[in-house]
């Protein structure tokens, strides 16, 4: 197994764990962390595929950098919303439904 494949396989596992965390966990901060895990998994897969031929491919690395920027922005938004929700209502979890 090439090192690229190791990265890619790890990335896939991390991705799956991250998705499971976002969907199944309850505490907002944990879900945000799980989202970051998911993102890191996807990035690892990208980086892993960048090394397939032995020579380094810069395009996936550029994509990962973009992805990291996006993930940071999304995380910032999520944390801000979660903090505000906590300040307003004391809740750290989303309830079942918010409908009538």
């Amino acid at each position, binding site marked *: 197994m090439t090192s690229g494949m190791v990265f*890619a396989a790890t*990335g*896939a596992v991390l*991705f799956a764990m*991250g*998705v499971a965390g*976002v*969907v199944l966990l309850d505490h*907002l901060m944990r*879900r945000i962390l799980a*989202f970051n895990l*998911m*993102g890191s*998994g*996807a990035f690892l*897969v*990208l980086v*892993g*595929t960048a090394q*397939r031929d032995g020579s380094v*491919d810069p*395009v*996936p690395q550029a*994509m990962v950098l*973009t*992805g990291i920027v*996006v993930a940071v*922005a*999304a995380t910032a*938004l*999520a944390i801000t*919303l*979660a903090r*505000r*929700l906590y300040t*307003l*209502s004391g*809740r750290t979890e*989303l*309830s079942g*439904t*918010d*409908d*009538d």
Partner: protein
Amino acid sequence: MTDPLVWLIVLPLVWASVAFLLGPSRGARLAVAGLGFQLLLALDLTRMLMTGGPRRYAVGGWGAPLGIDLFADGLSAIMLLLVQSIALLLAIYARSYFKPGAASRHFWPMMGFLVAGMNALFLAADLFNVYVTLELVGLAAVGLVAAGGEAAQLAAALRYLFATLVGSGAYLLAVALVYGTYGTVAIETLAPLIDARPPLAVWLAGALMLAGLLVKSALFPFHFWLPPAHGGAPAPVSALLSALVVKATFYLILRLWLGPFAPLAAAAVWLPSVLGCVAILWGSIMAIRTRRLKLLVAYSTVAQLGYLFLIFPLLAPDGIALQAGVLQAVAHGLAKSAMFAAAGVLIIASGRDAVEGVAGAAQHLPLTLFAFALAGVTLMGLPPSGGFLAKWLLIDAALLQGQWWLAAVVIAGGLLAAVYVFRVLRQAFLIVPENAVIAPVPRVLEWATFVLAAASVLLGLGGMEIVRLLGVGAPT
């Protein structure tokens, strides 16, 4: 230099940033001006496409695979026109809707980013660029939902955020797999590379992309985030989201399904339509049962999105199903934005978000009720609206391919829509006590609503134009 492709993306980014600095009142004027100009650009682009065929533009002069290409064909142009026209009317509406406060301060910049993201999405020519635009649209939309600042809206925004992030995360992983297999993400280059028997990684990529985009399109059973988000946000935000944002991901699924992933499509062809049928039934039933007005309209969105996904088993060279899907997307966009706008007006007037509240307000707002009725006519698929044309084409395509049950679902969906639409409309005819307290509503709100609703009905006469435009560089 004045290539409309680039300006359609750059211009909203510019005015959104400036609006952030200028504050809400000047920001609003800037937004309306910017969107007006963008609409002209979109019309210019349409004219160029009709005469010259699909257009491609390399940003900064660097072509693919390292640079970013922008690509416009008939389908992109239709979606661009839809976004600019609805956004313009909603901007005019929102200017008079928002009272000064946190919501209005954040609305204009985020609306600008949302429109910029969507324009870029419709013009994207490679898969990774699509990811970036998806995220931009998603974050802007979440921000808009949360703009009101109340706890319920924040919770709805967080739920939406998690759903949309999972969706784009899956999409990103799929892009990684595709790049790993073929070494390119350009859509045009990929199309001939993916044949009928691709490696496992590509199957996985296709499945992940479909799943991720379905989550973002709120197709049943991934619709859970939509009713609280669209039902709880301020009316112009709900209108933008229901009319436009969910259509963007539908557009992507269509592009990928008809383009690079066409050979794989046969395996999954029944999944979207079965889910679509359930969505139609489930959304309609929930809309019939709910007591809140905006929530009724939000559930209606869940149901109407089901129609869009019915076309996938019917996509065939003669293109009727594609015409049906695009017409439905456009008609629903116009009608749903009108309906949310009307709901917003009625809620301001009656002071509460309840279906019963319509009765008192309706006597004083006949134009708004009429607009709601026109929008309802489109949603029910009754003539003479754009929704009727879409319904006719959909039934025609279903019968042509012998799929009787699809035609039956479409017809049943129309009747169910009639139940919840008339739930609201009948309120307008009830006798109400004269002393009901009605808050005054700016005239602009009523007129913006009416124009949107009238457009969805007049679309019924413009079918030929849309079909002709769709034919430019048609994917099939």
